[in-house]
Every structure is written in C-alpha cells, then in structure tokens.
C-alpha cells in the first residue's frame, strides 16, 4: 500500500526561448493508492509537472519511474493509455456522443464493440449518470457537472492504475463542485487509484488529498506532507503565507477526536425528568440519565444551570472541529463523547484541543497509514 508507485526524479523542464526553467529539479514520490495534491499559486509549474507524468510535456532532464519502470523514453501513446487524465470541463470531444467519448480509450485498446458498450454503461453508472438517458447525448447537451462526470468516466474506462487530474472541478459552481468532490472521494474509496491532482484551491487540496505538495515557483516543493500536519505546522514562511491566517482552524476539521485526548469529568446520575443543579460538583458536571449523558450542569458563581447536549459519537467521522462546535453551541467548557451504544466515553476539554493540534504537528500517522491500521485492527478482531 505504501510502496512508491510514481517516482519523479530530478525533473527539469525548460521551455524553448525561456531561460528560467518552468520546473526545476523536482523530485516527488507518490505511493500506490494515495491521492497527492499539487497545490500552489498559478504559474508555479504544477500543471507542467503533471503533464510530464504522462509526457504531454517532455522533461528536459530527469527521470519518471512508474511501478518500478523507467518510462521517460517509453512510447508516449502506449504510456498514456494506462494513465487516466481529467481536465477542466472534462476535455470531451464535442463532436462525439457521450458513449463514444467514454469508449475512446477502449477503441484505442481494440476492445470488441460488445465489450465496449457494456463497459460504457458500467462507467456511466459508476459516475452516477443513467446510461439510457445520457449515452446518446452530445457534450453540449450536458451541464458542467455532467460533463465533468463523463470526463471521469472516460478516464476510468480502461481501468488505469493512475489518474492525473488538472483542476477537474474548476469550471463548475461551488455547490456542484462540492458534490463532485464528495462523489469522487467515495469513488476513490472503491477504485483505489494512484492519483496526482492539481488545484489552486487549498480547501480542495485539504479535502481531497492524502498528502499535499505545496509548490512554489519553478515547482519547488515548499512542503510535502499530510493536510493535518501542513496545517498544524507549516514548514516555512511561504507555506504559512499560502495557508493564510488561522490555518490551524482548518486543521481542527481534519483531526479526529481520539480516546487519548479525552479526560474524565465529574458526573451525576439523575432520574428522568429530574435535574438538581445543587448536586453538581465542581465547575462542570455531566448529567447522566438512564445511563446516557444528556447535558451539563455548570456552576457560574452561585448560579447553577442545566445545559442540554447532543453528545458526539467517538469515531473516525468526529473531528476536533465538531467537538469545538459543540462546546461553543452549548456554552460548556468541554465536549461530551459517547460510544456507538450511547454510553459516556469521556469529555474533551477545551485545553486538550490545542494540545492535540500541537501533537499532530509533531507527527501523527498519515491518513493512508491510518487506513492500514484500521484494516489491521479489523483483521485482528476477525
């Protein structure tokens, strides 16, 4: 899973007539099955870098190694048939129907026509387009989002192990973009491609990437790490500037709440319908009713009040941001976390939040490792 699959070794590209190289001695390793985001200001050479992987741009010097094989001098047409490529608006052929667009690579690979039409329908289904409705349409009869989906279907049709995406969701409105991003994430969990994804949108990079390479001029990599670690600990001034202010706040929505962050606060059990603030101990007390936490009793000077809480479930989908959200919403100094059964697991105190961010910066496991761990745990349980 974590084997290097695409290795860019000292890639340099100098365009004729321009003295400054567009990409200068770039080295980057992409592991199998991971999504690496290339993000940076426009004109920084990230698209050129992407195009060197499928040799739409021939490198001036350096090597490209894919799956252990040096492809720097391989036949580019054959190389490209094994690499999916998606660009803004899908790059569809306007004179071909959707089915012919999706089939384009399959025809190059000389599939039989019955196999092709089966595969086309399968691909349209995969990207959420009803084949019966969309098969015979022309690109101009599609919305921006639909075009983008067809572009993804075409890129995936021949089941290439690698996908290159160049600002694929750049030309659609924010709502559609978000939906396409979510769908792509779901799709990627199914298909597990090795993906290099170019964007100028930091939010997209954080959302989509297992790792992010922040690129500055001439494709110099300013930082290459997991989104959480980049946000929590920018490596240098350039990254800090690029992330903008309050980057740490973005980190909160990436870092999971884990059991080691939790602490135990005093709690009281009450009968249904009866809350007695007088029994509270200390500044904040968890109120438990029928074995389930239902809220807080807080002590503010002499005034004691009951604050009802909708507890969070401890798990991979609960992030620090959710916990902070709960604290702010309720007005309590900590968040209440429960297990799947609704039993109290512990409380996340506000002071634990910055500690968790600092801890993540010091070195939390990258996302892909985490997946491994989950798989290993599952195996273990089985």
């Amino acid at each position, binding site marked *: 899973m974590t084997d290097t699959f695409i290795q860019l070794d000292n890639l340099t590209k100098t365009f004729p007539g321009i003295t400054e190289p567009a990409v200068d001695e770039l080295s980057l390793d992409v592991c199998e099955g991971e999504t690496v985001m290339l993000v940076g200001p426009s004109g920084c050479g990230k698209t050129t870098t992407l195009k060197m992987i499928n040799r*739409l741009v021939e490198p001036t010097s350096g090597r490209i190694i894919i799956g252990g094989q040096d492809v720097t001098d391989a036949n580019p*047409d054959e*190389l*490209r048939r094994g690499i999916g490529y998606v*660009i803004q608006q899908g790059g569809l*052929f306007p004179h071909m129907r959707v089915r012919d667009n999706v089939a*384009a690579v399959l025809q*190059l690979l000389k599939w039989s026509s019955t196999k092709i039409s089966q595969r086309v329908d399968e691909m349209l289904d995969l990207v959420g387009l009803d084949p019966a409705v969309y098969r015979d349409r022309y690109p101009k009869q599609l919305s921006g989002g639909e075009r983008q989906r067809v572009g993804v279907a075409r890129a995936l049709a021949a089941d290439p192990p690698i996908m290159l995406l160049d600002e694929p969701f750049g030309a659609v409105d924010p709502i559609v973009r978000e939906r396409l991003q979510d769908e792509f994430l779901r799709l990627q969990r199914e298909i597990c491609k090795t993906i290099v994804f170019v964007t100028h949108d930091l939010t997209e990079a954080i959302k989509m990437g297992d790792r992010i390479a922040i690129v500055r001029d001439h494709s110099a990599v300013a930082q290459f790490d997991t989104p959480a670690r980049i946000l929590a600990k920018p490596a240098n001034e350039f990254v800090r500037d690029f992330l903008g202010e309050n980057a740490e706040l973005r980190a909160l929505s990436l870092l999971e709440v884990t059991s080691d962050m939790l602490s135990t606060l005093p709690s009281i059990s009450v009968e249904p319908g009866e809350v007695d603030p007088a029994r509270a101990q200390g500044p904040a007390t968890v109120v438990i009713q029928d074995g389930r936490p239902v809220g807080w009793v807080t002590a503010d000077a002499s005034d004691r009040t009951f604050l009802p809480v909708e507890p969070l479930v401890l798990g991979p989908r609960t992030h620090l941001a959710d916990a902070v959200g709960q604290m702010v919403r309720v007005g309590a100094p900590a968040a209440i976390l429960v297990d799947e059964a609704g039993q109290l697991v512990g409380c996340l105190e506000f002071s634990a939040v910055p500690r968790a961010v600092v801890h993540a910066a010091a070195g939390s496991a990258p996302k892909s490792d985490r997946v491994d761990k989950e798989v290993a745990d599952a195996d273990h349980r089985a």
Partner: protein
Amino acid sequence: MSFSEYLSYYGADVVQQFGGHLGVVVLATLLGSIVGISTGIAVYRVPRASALAIKVSGIVLTIPSLALYVLLLGLLGLGWPPVLTALTLYSLLPIVQNTIVGLCGVDAATVEAAKAIGMSRRRCLIRVELPMAWPIILTGVRVSALLLVSTAAIGAIVNGPGLGEAIYTGLNQIGTPTALYSALSGIVGIVIVGVLLNFVFIALARLTVSGGLRD
C-alpha cells in the same frame, strides 16, 4: 418564335450543356477539395507555410479567368482539360484557407485530451481535428463550388463544356430571333446549377457534420 418553341428545338442541347456545366463544376470542386484539404493538412501546424499556401492560392485567384483559359489553351488544348484545370486552381483559395482556419481553430485543450488518452497524431487528426474542423472546411468547399458555377461559363471561349456556350451563341447572333433565348437559357441554366448545388451542400452538411457541432 416563343421561348418554349426555342426550347423544343434546342432543348436537347441545353440539357447537354447543363449536364456539362454541372459536371465540370462538381469535378473541379472535388479535385480542388482533394488538393486543397491535403495542402491545408500539410501546412496548418506551421504558420509560415500556412501563410505561403494561402498567398499562392490567392494569387491564382487574381488571374483573370479569360487570361488563364488562353494560357492553358497552349498547354492543354481545347475542351475539358483547360477548363477543368482552371476551375480546380480557382477553387483552391477558399478550400485551403478554410481548412487551415478550421484546423487551427480546434480547441487546443481538446487536442491535448486526445493525445492524453493515447491517440497518435494521425488518429487525432482523423478522429478529432478533421471532424471538428469539418463545418468550416465544408463551407470553404461550398464557396468554391458556387464561385466555379459562374467562372465555368467563360470556359466556352476555349470550347469547354457548359452553359457558357449558350450565352456566347446568343452574343454572336445578336439581332437574330433566337439570340435572346439562347443567352437566356444559358443564364437561367447557370442559376439553376447554382441553386441545385446549394441544396446539395445543405444536405451534405446535414449528413456529415456531427450533431454535437451544430447549433
């Protein structure tokens, strides 16, 4: 003698001239398309070669047709050969120019997408670039064909085929009762050839231009 009487006497000749006119125009347009589109494909990637090709075919078009027919008379004799050659040469400019403009106008991102999925340059040209440029190329062919319909009439001076002969006969017999009818049959015939070709091109565009490119 009325026009209908004239036609009953000379109708067979007019029909034959009509056939010859249509034939020489269609044939010259076909030859011009083969030469012109091939030239356009050969040069469109190189701006200087494109400019040269357009300039040369433009110069050809500026030679007065009368002069060109007489010039070719010495080389190719009388009848079909000089007329067909001259018309083919005249057809080149719109076809070469529109082929170049059409191919250069194909969206670069689409061509790159074709390359990126592993199409060879040749396949990309045949499957992507030419079909996308086709509406513009076809317009060039149509302009050429309609241009040739009128130019072909002058071919009669080198004894070429077509309705020009009827017009010349009329001119030479001015004052005789049939002069006007002769010229009229030539002119009306030429107009019909033009209208007919126009319909053919509309049908051709319907059949050959992808629905994805039509408005």
